């Protein structure tokens, strides 16, 4: 099979031109068989075939940008027919003008009107069919390429996702803490292994498309906070204040935890003091509102810096799920960095 991509348009033009050159000779040969003078026969065959050549070419060049649907092939038939009629009438008129004194030829023209029309029609139909099939196959191929690309992108995104979920820095630091506890306080080490396992299991089991209750997301979040508290000891405190009503509201899985993770990182690494991360939730106008606060040092970091990659990907996810750009917002008040998430309840 011909691969349509490898056939450049340059090659196509060459193929097309030689096809018509071939027909010029056939045409000439037939005319000479009818005892038409050589010079007249040459002009006739050249004019006839090149009229069709350019007409069809320009007509279908336009079609390149408008590939008719398979159902519309009927309209193409009509167009070919109209083109054939037009070409026949035009050539008839042209030849009568050019050879007005050649009575033998004029007579031949009138006699061969029907056969000429049939010839024009067949030629135009054939070429149009070839071009149509060509364009059709090309479109299929382009569709395939697009599909492959989309699949590849999806795969990459998935991989990134897994890498993101595993959070190597968090994981290895937690394992290091366990390693430290194992020597002196094996009971606590065992407990932390339990917490870490539960947390990881929760992360892996969740489908990101899935909506879950805030209550469940909070359970997952608490596991995370407990692990971080073991790591950072007295430096990290947290308070969770949630309206009773908000607990049963739905939100996309694994939205809250990365935001809190970001808040912890920002808070812990931007100050040397003890920090409190606060999470609160309310319901307003059938929207779940979650507010996460962390302290930062306005002197040394512009909050913009802290938004970072973590929040960008959350924003992107919220956009994909709800088609809104305004669901994640951040601002700072004094030395508090505040992240607000709105989740519309469907």
């Amino acid at each position, binding site marked *: 099979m011909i691969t349509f991509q490898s056939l450049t348009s340059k090659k196509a033009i060459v193929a097309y031109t030689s096809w018509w050159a071939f027909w010029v000779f056939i045409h000439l040969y037939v005319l000479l068989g009818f005892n038409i003078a050589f010079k007249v026969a040459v002009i006739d065959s050249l004019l006839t075939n090149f009229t069709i050549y350019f007409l069809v070419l320009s007509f279908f060049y336009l079609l390149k940008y408008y590939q008719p649907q398979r159902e519309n092939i009927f309209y193409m038939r009509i167009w070919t027919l109209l083109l054939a009629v037009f070409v026949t009438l035009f050539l008839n008129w042209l030849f009568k003008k050019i050879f007005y004194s050649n009575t033998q030829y004029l007579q031949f023209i009138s006699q061969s009107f029907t056969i000429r029309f049939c010839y024009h029609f067949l030629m135009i139909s054939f070429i149009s069919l070839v071009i149509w099939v060509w364009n059709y196959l090309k479109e299929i191929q382009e569709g395939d390429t697009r599909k492959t690309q989309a699949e590849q992108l999806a795969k990459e995104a998935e991989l990134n996702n897994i890498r993101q979920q595993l959070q190597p*820095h968090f994981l290895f630091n937690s*394992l*290091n803490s366990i*390693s*430290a506890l194992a020597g*002196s306080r094996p009971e606590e080490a065992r407990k932390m292994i339990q917490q870490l396992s539960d947390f990881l299991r929760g992360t892996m089991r969740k489908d990101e498309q899935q909506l879950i209750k805030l209550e469940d997301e909070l359970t997952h979040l608490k596991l995370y906070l407990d692990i971080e508290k*073991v790591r950072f000891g007295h430096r990290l405190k947290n308070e969770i204040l949630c309206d009773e009503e908000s607990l049963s509201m739905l939100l996309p899985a694994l939205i809250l935890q990365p935001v809190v993770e970001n808040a912890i990182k920002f808070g812990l690494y931007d100050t*040397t003091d003890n920090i409190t991360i606060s999470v609160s939730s309310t319901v307003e106008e059938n929207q779940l509102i979650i507010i996460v606060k962390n302290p930062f040092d306005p002197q040394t970091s512009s909050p913009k*810096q802290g938004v970072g990659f973590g929040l960008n990907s959350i924003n992107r996810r919220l956009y994909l799920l709800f088609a809104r750009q305004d669901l994640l917002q951040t601002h700072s008040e004094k030395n508090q960095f505040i992240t607000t998430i709105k989740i519309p309840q469907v």
Partner: protein
Amino acid sequence: MIKCVIIDDEPLARGIVKEYLDALPDFEIMQECNDGFEGVKAIMQHQPDLIFLDIQMPKISGFEMLELLEQQPAVIFTTAFDEYAMKAFDAHAIDYLLKPFSKERFDKAVQKWKDQRGNLDIKQKTDSMLDMVSKHHEEHQRVVVKTGSKIRIIPVHDVLYLEADDDYVRIHTIEGSFLKKKTMQHFEDTLSPSQFVRVHRSYIIQIAQITRIESTDKENHVAVLKNNERIPLSKTGYPKLKAVLGL
């Protein structure tokens, strides 16, 4: 006795280094530090033979902390960064322990340091490692400096301009100027080229601080900053600045 200092922001992570060190003879832990600020103080006070240093810490990273020291100590990094990120260190013969690490791995690192102790090029090693790190890391968003015992973190957008000053670079900000033992080349390499331009052998200016460019005579130009300071532009600096400004 071999004097050690442990610097890590996670108490349990310090604990494990301490535990492994306690099992070795001749090692004395002078101090455990929560962050780089404490680290700098402890190092100046105790002059340790060896420090165990975490990289990601509050306010200033392990690398930034080392930059503040006049005299580089021998360092073994303890980090949860992935191996790939740490690979570059191999060439500099400074050991790193990937968390969590075993007692055997720890002992090996300490033994390696002991073996190399005689060679007095440790300072040089640390210096070249820091140089490499600053080039590898993404563009710097801040500069950490030390004046007396005070450590300042200067966000780069607060910098007016940098001026060469013998072996140092003087960093001019709205709140005064600070010295840092680095080369102009270092700053030219690490600051964002869309934000800072080296306009002269001795000057790098922040583009956002320029209000206008004036010509002093036919050939010479100066950039006038928001605070009315005038910075000379060299023959190569002037067209470079014009190009960045899109003139």
